[in-house]
Each structure stands twice: as structure tokens, then as C-alpha cells.
């Protein structure tokens, strides 16, 4: 009933408004200036739609409307719209926001804090109206009142479904492969050229009678790159013990040093030469980045190791280390997941394990179920990505755009 009454009112206004403006123009032919000053009011916005904002924690309402007929057309005098809100259709209405001309929608977000003056309570009725404004503050047009609408929160953000699906798939893959690896399944990992290079380099060091320098990088004991590096260190230490070559492991982090000592000790025991292991093979240097580099550089130039192996996390020191090693004439093998540092290792080293190859090398050598399972899960995830990319690419090139929309995460 109320709505019909409002509609009738709007109709009357719509009929009366042009008449009224026409009359104003006729009534005031006396002064040209006065005629210019009283500019005609623009048409109001129409068809205001209100809804609770989707996928949020509440305290927000989304408005959409059809713009004024004089916005960008007609009188072309609209400069924007003001959004007003009230708790009852009669008001009082409070201005909530202003949006520029041409806008079709607005999200009215209030605070969720009760103490805030901007607090917007959920589950109560709100009413909105939109004022079409012009450059002249006295000339504007108000829409009819729209409402009621209530705001409320959602338990699930459906806009993030793609993320949920991908997380679930990846977790399932990881758990499945870790379980299989734990169960002793023979999971295939292709041999990496870098691993062969490590073996060769150890052989060369033995021939030359010079030590091998192993740098674990600047990572902490918890970094995956450092963990992968322990496995490779274990392998190197075992070979070194077998060939009776020297090993130098300067460390940046005291915890990394402790783990590295255990790793090397275990490898010497594995190789049947626990007596050859010496505590000072693995030592702590300093936790200052460039001081550490200076110390390692000094070792490279003094001891002239036959082979330098850099595996782990590296930052700005990568090039300084690798360059000094190249200057000293050592064979160098590097591996890091720090993408920004890979180019430096590529130019200054004989062989570089790029990004994930470091993890793969570690999984290949160590056969540790956790690493191996994760690596396999990643491989299958990559296969999935290749497949999705191919499907999406083919569909798009045959004019089907809908597939891409599935990958849109709303907020």
C-alpha cells in the first residue's frame, strides 16, 4: 500500500516537475541572468535495488540503481550522487557517502565495533534514498525511499571456493604421496644432472688432494631450502668420508651448525669411518651477512678448495661468494630457491640447481618420505596446472570465455 502511494507520488512529481520548470522559464523572462541562475533540477535515479552485501561479516549493504536521465545525457548537469540512510522511511536520513556521476552502485560499509560512531547493526531495517546532485548545491533531485533491508554476515565466503578447491586437492595429494612414501612405495624421481656433477666434483677434489667447501646459506634451520641442503650435505659428507677428502662447512646460523654437525657425523659413521670425523669440520662463523661472506671468501682464497658447493637460502652475498670461488679456480655447484639470486649463480658457477631442483635433488638423494611425498604432490599439481592451462587456453581460443570465470576469486 505504502509502495503504491509512493509510486503515485513519484508519478505526480514526474509529471509536475517538467511543468514546474517550464513555468519557471516562462515566468521569468525579465532578467536573463536570473534565468541562467535557476538551473533545472535533474531527474532522480530510479529502480534502487538493495541487498545485503554477499560474502562478508555483515554490517554492510549493497545498493544499485539506474542513473538519472540527466547523467551524461539530457540536461547533462549531474555531478554525482549522495547516498542517504535512515532507520525508518520517514527519516531522519543521514548522508553516508558521495559517488561520482556515472556510478551505478555503492557498497555502504559500516563499522562492526559497537563503540564506533559508524557502527552498523545487523538484523535491523535500514532505508535508503539517493540524492542526485549538481554543481549548484540548491539544485538536486531525491529518489524515492527504498527499503527496508537488513545486513547480516555469511558463514561461508562463496567467492573463495576456487581457493578451497585448490587447497583441498593439493592437501589430499600431499597426504596421499607422503603416506605412500612412508609405506615404502617406490616413487620415481628422475635423476638430475646436478647430482652427477656433485659426484664428479668430489672425485676431482680427491684427485687433487684438496678439500670441499660446503656452504649452507643464510637460511634458518626451519627453511625448506636449508632442510634440503642437509640431505645433500649428508650425501657429500658420506662420499668425502669414503674418499678421505677434506670437508669445510662454515655456518651462519648456530642452530644450522648443530644440525649440520650431526648430519656430517652420521654420514661419516654410515661410511664406516666415524674416526675420521672432526668437530671443527663444521664451524660457526658469524650472523652478520657480509662479515660471514668475508670469512668464507678468506677460506676460499687461503685453502683453495677444489670444489665449492652452495646449497640453501642465499641473498645479496650470492654473487660475491660465487665470484670469489671462480677467481680461486674451484669447481662450483650451487642450488637455491631464491629466484632473484639464481642468475648470479648461473653466471658464476659450473652447475646450478634452479629453484625446485634443489628440493628434487634432496628428495632423490635422501628418499625422505616427507620430502619425496611433497615433491610428488607438487609434480601432480604441476601436471594439473598444465592440464588446466591447456584446457583454458584451447577453450579461450575457440571463443569460450566462461572457463576463465571459475578462477575469479571475489574477495
Amino acid at each position, binding site marked *: 500500500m505504502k509502495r503504491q502511494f509512493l509510486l503515485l507520488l513519484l508519478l505526480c512529481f514526474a509529471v509536475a516537475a517538467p511543468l514546474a520548470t517550464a513555468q519557471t522559464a516562462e515566468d521569468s523572462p525579465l532578467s536573463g541572468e536570473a534565468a541562467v541562475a535557476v538551473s533545472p533540477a535533474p531527474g532522480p535515479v530510479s529502480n534502487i535495488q538493495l541487498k545485503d552485501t554477499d560474502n562478508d561479516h555483515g554490517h554492510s549493504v549493497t545498493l544499485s540503481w539506474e542513473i538519472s536521465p540527466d547523467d551524461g545525457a539530457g540536461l547533462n548537469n549531474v555531478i554525482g550522487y549522495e547516498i542517504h540512510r535512515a532507520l525508518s522511511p520517514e527519516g531522519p536520513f543521514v548522508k553516508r557517502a558521495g559517488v*561520482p556521476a556515472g556510478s551505478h552502485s555503492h557498497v555502504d*560499509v559500516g*563499522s562492526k565495533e559497537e563503540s564506533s560512531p*559508524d557502527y552498523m547493526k545487523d538484523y535491523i531495517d535500514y532505508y535508503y534514498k539517493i540524492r542526485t546532485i549538481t554543481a549548484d548545491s540548491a539544485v538536486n533531485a531525491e529518489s524515492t525511499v527504498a527499503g527496508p533491508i537488513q545486513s547480516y554476515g555469511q558463514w561461508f565466503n562463496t567467492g573463495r571456493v576456487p581457493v578451497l578447491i585448490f587447497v583441498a586437492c593439493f592437501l589430499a595429494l600431499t597426504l596421499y604421496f607422503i603416506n605412500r612414501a612412508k609405506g615404502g612405495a617406490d616413487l620415481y624421481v628422475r635423476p638430475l644432472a646436478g647430482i652427477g656433477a656433485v659426484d664428479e666434483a668430489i672425485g676431482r677434489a680427491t684427485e687433487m688432494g684438496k678439500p670441499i667447501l660446503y656452504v649452507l646459506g643464510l637460511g634458518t634451520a626451519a627453511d625448506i631450502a636449508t632442510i634440503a641442503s642437509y640431505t645433500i650435505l649428508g650425501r657429500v659428507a658420506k662420499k668425502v668420508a669414503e674418499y678421505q677428502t677434506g670437508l669445510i662447512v662454515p655456518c651462519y646460523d648456530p642452530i644450522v651448525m648443530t644440525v649440520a654437525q650431526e648430519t656430517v657425523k652420521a654420514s661419516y659413521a654410515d661410511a664406516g669411518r666415524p674416526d675420521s670425523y672432526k668437530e671443527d669440520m663444521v664451524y660457526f662463523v658469524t650472523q652478520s651477512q657480509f662479515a660471514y661472506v668475508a670469512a668464507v671468501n678468506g677460506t676460499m682464497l687461503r685453502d683453495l678448495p677444489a670444489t665449492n658447493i652452495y646449497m640453501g637460502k642465499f641473498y645479496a652475498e650470492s654473487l660475491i661468494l660465487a665470484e670469489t670461488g671462480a677467481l680461486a679456480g674451484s669447481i662450483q655447484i650451487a642450488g637455491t630457491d631464491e*629466484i*632473484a639470486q639464481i642468475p648470479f649463480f648461473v653466471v658464476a658457477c659450473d652447475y646450478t640447481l634452479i629453484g625446485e631442483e634443489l628440493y628434487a635433488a634432496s628428495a632423490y638423494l635422501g628418499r625422505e618420505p616427507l620430502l619425496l611425498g611433497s615433491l610428488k604432490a607438487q609434480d601432480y599439481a604441476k601436471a594439473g596446472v598444465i592440464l588446466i592451462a591447456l584446457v583454458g587456453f584451447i577453450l579461450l581460443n575457440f571463443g569460450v570465455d566462461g572457463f576463465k570465470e571459475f578462477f575469479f*576469486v*571475489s*574477495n
Partner: protein
Amino acid sequence: MNNLGLIISFLVIGAGLLWFLLRALQGKEVERRIIFVFIGLAVSVPILFSITFAEKASPIVKAVYDKIENLPDGSRVLISYDYGPSMAPEVEPMSNAFLRHSLAKGHKVYLMGLWATGQSIAATAIDSVVRREFPEKVYGVDFVNLGYKAGNQGVLNVIITDIRKMYLTDVGGIDLDSLPIMDGIKSLRNMNLLMSVGGGFPGIKEWIQFAGDPGHIPVAGGSAAVSAPLLYPYYPTQLLGLLGGIKGAAEYEAELKRHYPQFADTPQPGIKMMGPQTLAHLVIMAFIIIGNISFFVARRRRG
């Protein structure tokens, strides 16, 4: 003066390169410190003689310029200073150009930093750019320095929903609610454009991941050259434009100068740096060629 500079530069560089080439052909190695001195010369001479080149904005730079230019006057632009003094020569020209352009267009500018050092760099920018070139702009009305908060990407994760959860005051301890520029600002979602200038962690990538993508807010950036290639995959869908290294800064400055005659006399460090850059790059390219010649000569002698 400029021509004289150019001639001297080319003479120095040409003679030096010739010497290096001769040494390479003879199979002799060159002491690395001489190379350092040579690079130092190739960079110094163009600086002293102020050699500059014409710049034209590439699409990726032009996209940032157009975005600021096409935003309606009075839009809200946030500039995050995510760098320290060690990166400043390279990226400061970018943040200054963004600031200049935004203020000249009449936008409201919010300065902040995800790096502690960014806070004082933003303060310096206010002194050297805003106070000097835009004396009519009022602090708290046209621009504000929100300062730094610890927490890296965590800060963004909070202010994407509520700025006041992290920032109660501006950098000088003034209550944010008392500043007119903060009226109607609840979260980053109220910003029309987010710009991060930096080149490390946290930086543009974090702005994309934690603010731009979840809030669907346009993100643009200025990055140190080192990390620029890693940001290209986000362009143009997730990152609307990027100034990569000093070249990007120079292109932006040139674009600004072309459309805003009032900036003809303001300092243009980006454009100025491209002179030494160009010469240093030529020299380095020559070194790569000479180095390869030397390598093959040495191999042939050995073989």
C-alpha cells in the same frame, strides 16, 4: 658544454675499450681494479657533464601515468614507501614523481611505509617535494603521512578491513579521526589507487597479494631494477603498471614534463641518471664482447 662532455666521454671510453681489446687479443688478463676505475669513469663523466637523452614512456609506464591522470580530481591515492636509503637513488625519483603527479592532479595523497626506513623517507619527500612545490597543500587535508607499522604483509591484511586497527595516529601522533583527509576512510578499499615503491620484501608483490587482489583495488608500483622482472607476470591484470628501475623513472618524468609545463624546472634525477646509465651499459656490453674474445683466444692457445 654538453657536446664537449659527450666528446670527452666517448674519447675516454673508446680509448679504454681499445686498450682492453688489445690486451684480450694478446691473451693477457686485465686487473679487475682497472675495470672498476673504468666503470667509475664511464659513470662519472656523464654525471659531471650532465649528459641526458630523450625518453618516451613505454606502455607499462604509461599505464601508471594514465591511471593517475584519469582518476577524477580528489581521488584517494596511497603511496607506500617500501625502501631504505640504500635503494633510494634508484626508486626515490619514482616516489617523488608519483607524489608530484598526484598532488598536481588534485588527488588526496596518503603516505605510509611497510619498511621502517620508509617513514622518514616519506617525511623527507614531504619537505622536499610537497612543501617546496605545493605550498598551498595542507597537511591533514590534502596529504598525510601515516608512517610505518611493523608486521610486513600482516599490516596489509589488517588495514584491508580496518585502517584504524593499525593506525590510530599519523606519524606525528595526531589522532587520525581529527584529520579531515581521513573522513570516510575505513580501509584500503576506500582508496582509488595503491602505489608501492620499493624493491624488496615486503613490497609490490605483497601489495598485490594482500591488498590489490583481495580488495580488487588497482595497484601500481615502482620497483628497483633487481626485482622488476619478477613482477612482470602480474602485469597487466593484477598490477596495472610498473616503473622498472631508473629507466622507468626517467620515462615517467619525461611524460610528466611533457604534460605539466610547471614541472619543467623541477629536478629530474631519473632522466639525469639515464646518461651515465647508457654509457655504463655500452661499456659493460663491450666488456662482455671483449671478455668472450679473451675467453676464446685463451682456449685456442691452450687447445
